[in-house]
């Protein structure tokens, strides 16, 4: 196993871990805003690590360019989506959870 393959494997594994942890967070966190944060984790670092891990696989340059474009778009759109969702929810009066409150 050469070092590039090893690095790719490590990145993919870490990405998978972040993705699952974000998924668990989405299900387990108590209110909308904390869940939004969990989704942010999977979308930014989880997706980023997986895409970089795939880049280090033996691939043609055409595939590499497409992976880079996906990476670029995801770094552009997912923080924006998280931001505007949180903004809209706050405006619409979605409640914030405090210590001791019921989960919603």
């Amino acid at each position: 196993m050469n070092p590039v393959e090893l690095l790719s494997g490590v990145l993919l594994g870490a990405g998978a871990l972040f993705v699952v942890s974000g998924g668990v967070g989405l299900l387990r966190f108590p209110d909308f805003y904390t869940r939004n944060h969990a989704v942010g984790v999977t979308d930014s670092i989880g997706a980023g690590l997986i895409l970089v891990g795939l880049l280090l696989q033996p691939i043609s340059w055409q595939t590499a360019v497409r992976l880079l474009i996906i990476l670029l778009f995801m770094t552009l759109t997912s923080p924006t989506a998280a931001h505007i969702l949180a903004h809209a929810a706050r405006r619409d009066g979605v409640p914030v959870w405090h210590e001791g409150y019921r989960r919603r």
Partner: protein
Amino acid sequence: MTTFALINVTLLGILLATALAIARMRALYEATMLAALLSLVTATLFVLLDAVDVAFTEAAVGVGISTVLLLGVLALTRSWEAVTSQRRRLPGLLVVVLAGGALVYASQDLPAFGAADSPVQLHPVTDAYLYESQDEVGIPNTVTAVLASYRALDTLGELVVVFTAGLAVLSVLGPLARPEQTRPGADFHLADYRVIRVITRLLLPFILVFALYVLFHGEYGPGGGFQAGVIFATGAVLYGLVFGLDRAQQVIPSWALWLFICLGLLLYLGLGVATMLLGGSFLDYDVLSPGHPETGQHLGILLVEMAIGTTVSAVMAMIFFSFASRGASR
């Protein structure tokens, strides 16, 4: 169980669970979100079942256009469903049980899933589409070859259906609103949010270039006229959502939409007539370049894909503008 089967079962399970949840959901906004989710699952299944071109179309149509249309109509009407009475449930269940029984009974005669020796796969037309097309048409993407060359007449019919549906929407909803007809304040837009405005400005050129790439790359990879058309329309929808209907109609005036809708269809028909005048049969591209049938096929497929893309994008944009006008002028 192979990896494929495992992934397939998981995704089918997600699909079925989503469908059942949609049936139970009485809040229609939420049901629309779940319908968008259903479309995402469908597209992953299309990728898994090797239908990359179809996944492409489903991506742009299911998540982009039909979600936006449904949400727009919910904003115009009511977004809460009344309780389904017990009396209505029975006939539905009866039909479902009967139809389900008939389907499962009939499915016993279907070939096993993924069988390579089923009648369909052994039929000579399979060989013709997959391998002989490489000599006759000469493009790697056989889906595009079948769509735009072997079954071009079929596709013309589909395009006419899309055209007619566009006309039907217009005749039901009335003409697009002119700026002076819109209620002041009704055309709320998101351009005041700097984040959205900047990101949309960044993304829109990408979307348009990507649509062109999909249109012209359709011979070699997943893509083609239908896909490019809906991606273009998604760009128009995004522009309209962010910058408002008035701005969008300044950029894409309705006469231009009409022009594109008719131009695409006329290009398609005109190509068919041209091939007939050159001595071939309707939409037989071989005669476009005498002596080099492959060049003729390339040219014909490219023109047909452009025709499809033009009409589909203009019809979809027109449909979106009609619904948006209805909201703004009410």
